């Protein structure tokens, strides 16, 4: 059983604090992804769990042991590094078996574990090569293999796919997901790529500037972001955000049209309150080029400045309330730049954030 609990974990480098009292409970067998822009403290947090960084305050437990001051080797974890960190002077076989050899396990047990890992990751034919003779994807698999031979309680992944090309990245993403289903273990995974986070995670932890902004399932954070940061960080293209003020039961967008107040927020806002209206491109569609909207919606004209056909849908860039806004069109047709279209905004899928705190008004 390996839950990982972080309680008020703090990291300081001299006077600079990079992680500000993080609380996080990771369940046994859970796949948790820490995501955020670079410098948000996600890698530092992972390295503190690994024991590669000391913690400046708080408590970390793995299973039911407090591991604050334990060196990495006593934490029963394994880690996959961004640049693989394979031992260049050892063959793949030696790389895979290294941890067991250090633990002085009998040779036949090491051989069995190495063969098993090589089988899972289809590395059998490369066992006698050195890492230098492998391709990026193969090295990545060796790094993962080295992590699984030990059957650790917790796997840590530090941006493992960021050195791979786009195609390989998608492929390895699937392999990691399969691996999790096979080895059934707790995984903490760090990435700056929100697509990786969405596709892999049981739960996503979104971090910024050493704080946790939101924790939730991928759908949770996508559908009800806690603040504007999460709203723009998760989902592609990022959520459109427009400033405005509540006047009665409408939102008057700054330098823009009046839009009815989304009904789900009616009781959460006060007259005259400054707000930020958020909506995704998927919820703003030109009339006649999508399913007609049901329920509450707003309608207004918008000029389309640019369109990006993506195949099944076309991304439209227009200007609303003085800001660039992205919309989607489902039934593609050639568009003239500068063409004015009538748009419908699905109010039931809109988000409202407080203009000062940028927190959701849900």
């Amino acid at each position, binding site marked *: 059983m390996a839950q990982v609990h972080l309680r008020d974990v703090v990291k300081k480098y001299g006077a600079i604090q990079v992680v500000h009292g993080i609380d996080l409970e990771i369940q046994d067998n859970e796949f948790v992804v820490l995501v955020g822009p670079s410098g948000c403290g996600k890698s530092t947090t992972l390295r503190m769990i*690994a*024991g*590669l960084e000391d913690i400046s305050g708080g408590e970390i437990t793995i299973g039911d042991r407090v591991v604050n001051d334990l*060196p*990495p*080797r006593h934490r029963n*974890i*394994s*880690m996959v*590094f*961004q*640049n693989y*960190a*394979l*031992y*260049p*002077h050892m063959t793949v076989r030696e790389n895979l078996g*290294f*941890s067991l050899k*250090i*633990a002085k396990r009998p040779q036949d047990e090491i051989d069995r574990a190495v063969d098993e890992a090589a089988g899972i990751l289809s590395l059998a034919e490369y066992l006698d090569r050195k*890492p*230098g003779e492998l391709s990026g994807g193969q090295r990545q698999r060796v790094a993962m293999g*080295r992590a699984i031979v*030990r059957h650790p309680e917790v796997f840590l992944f530090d941006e493992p796919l960021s050195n791979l090309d786009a195609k390989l990245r998608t492929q390895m993403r699937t392999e990691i997901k399969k691996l999790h289903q096979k080895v059934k273990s707790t995984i903490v995974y760090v990435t700056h790529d929100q697509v990786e986070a969405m596709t892999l995670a049981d739960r996503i932890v979104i971090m910024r500037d050493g704080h946790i902004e939101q924790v939730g399932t991928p759908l949770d954070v996508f559908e009800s972001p806690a603040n504007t940061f999460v709203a723009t960080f998760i989902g592609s293209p990022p959520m459109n955000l427009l400033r405005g003020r509540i006047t009665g039961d409408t939102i008057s967008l700054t330098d823009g049209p009046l839009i009815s107040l989304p009904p789900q927020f009616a009781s959460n806002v006060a007259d005259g309150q400054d707000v930020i209206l958020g909506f995704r491109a998927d919820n703003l569609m030109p009339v006649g080029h999508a399913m007609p909207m049901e329920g509450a919606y707003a309608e207004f004209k918008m000029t389309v400045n640019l369109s990006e056909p993506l195949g099944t849908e076309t991304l439209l860039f227009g200007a609303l309330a003085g800001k660039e806004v992205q919309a989607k069109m489902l039934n593609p047709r050639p568009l003239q730049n500068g063409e004015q279209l009538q748009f419908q905004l699905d109010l039931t899928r809109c988000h409202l954030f407080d203009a000062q705190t940028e927190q959701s008004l849900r």
Partner: protein
Amino acid sequence: MNENLQHRIRKYLLKALHFVALFIAMAIICVPGLWVVLNSFRPTVEIMAKPPVWIPNELNLDNYRAMFGAVGEGGVPVLQYFTNSLIVSVTSTLIAILVGMAGGYAFARYSFKGKAGIFIGLMLTRAVPGVSLSLPLFIVMAKTGLIDTHLGLILVYVALNVPFTIWLIDGFFRQVPIDLAEAAEIDGCTRWQAFWKVEFPVARAGVASAGIFAFLTSWNEYALASQLTRSTFSKTMPVGLRDFTSEFTINWGGMCALAVLMIIPALILTFIVQKHLIAGLTFGGVKG
């Protein structure tokens, strides 16, 4: 004549010129060495002949025989000098490498107060010409009674070599990604094990090249050794060469013979570790 042919001819000509230039350069580098080897097998008459005799009329081992012969007949305690050189060079190299590894690793991996200053200080010691140290060293060694001992010379060579080995080894450890040691620690190693089982083997080529440079420096050093050694019991081979000079004559043949004996171990060593040496010097260019 067509254009392609012209270009081809020019290419061959350039290539030929290239080889000629290389040959001249190599000749300039190699001739003194070959001359020494050649002279060690020739009688003095031929060595001193003017104009120089390039194609030897007679080759024999007389110089070697005399060198290993009795003291009165041109003999020199070669074995004793060789042993002295070996003891001094090997010991000082080992110490310089150990200190260099500790220091180089510390400079490469840890940040501490005054790091840059200490490093520059170490490098500055290399800027002092060795000979200028001979008098102060002589006085220090004389006062401490270390003159004419192996230990004295070993200490001097360690001091000479350590800044260099630290600098070189620091460079090699910098090339070893820190992730490797971290991965090893996660795989169950202590900090110490991570160093010996992962970081050291990866940087081994660099340590080997530092070792060769340190060894060759000690093995070939003459200026300081000539001041700090007096007797057969501590003279190293370069100093031993002076045994062939007397008040009015110089035994060039004997000197060359001893020089050849001196070159051989260095040559063998360099040959054995050649692979490491080159790998070491080009380490940065090869991605592991």
